[in-house]
């Protein structure tokens, strides 16, 4: 009966943990509520993407995560 929220990169430090379980289903308002004000502030910006069940959402506000799915919060990337 849960959705796992994953905090990637610097969002992990901001959240104070790598992941958090919340009850399903989870929509955008529920996500903002579940992650705390600091992460929610970042999430509201354009630079943070959201993936649900392994797919990056074109519109993150349309999030609708079901039981057993993983929601990953993806801040700006840097590789190479």
């Amino acid at each position, binding site marked *: 009966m849960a959705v796992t929220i994953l905090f990637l*990169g610097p969002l992990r430090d901001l959240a104070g943990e790598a992941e958090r379980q919340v009850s399903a289903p989870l929509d955008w308002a529920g996500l903002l509520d579940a992650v705390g004000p600091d992460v929610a502030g970042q999430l509201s910006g354009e630079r943070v993407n959201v993936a649900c069940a*392994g797919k990056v959402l074109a519109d993150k506000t349309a999030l609708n995560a079901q039981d057993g799915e*993983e929601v990953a919060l993806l801040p700006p*990337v*840097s590789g*190479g």
Partner: protein
Amino acid sequence: MRDIRLLTEPFYPGALIGPFTNANPGLGGVCTFVGEVRLDEGVEALELTHYEPLTLQGMQELADRAFARFKLMGLLMVHRVGQMHPGEPIVCVSAAARHRRDAIDTVDFCMDHLKSAAWFWKREKRADGWHWIEPRADDYADLARWGE
């Protein structure tokens, strides 16, 4: 010949380039870029993290775009994750083509995307702890050159 990998252990680029070149008989040119952890004062280690469901698949999609955009015979794209130290390779991209421009541009294209548009997060360890690294403005400008 297409070889796209994520590695969790140190690698030796030279050991990959030879077999890659041999696997593309008839090529006219090979271009290779190797990125290493720079020796910066105060930096003790670098750590790259990724997100399993997206990162390798994203590299495969980047390779698809390179094959669609350039006249390529082969592409090798290898990226490290985990903790690394100065002098260790982070990334190796090698492209084989009939003509040099396709090989050179492919490597340039792939590296610009790996730097600031692939699913990796980078942080460095200094005496006072870990610091997250974001792409520089130059990295975004490099990416914008490809007009996608």
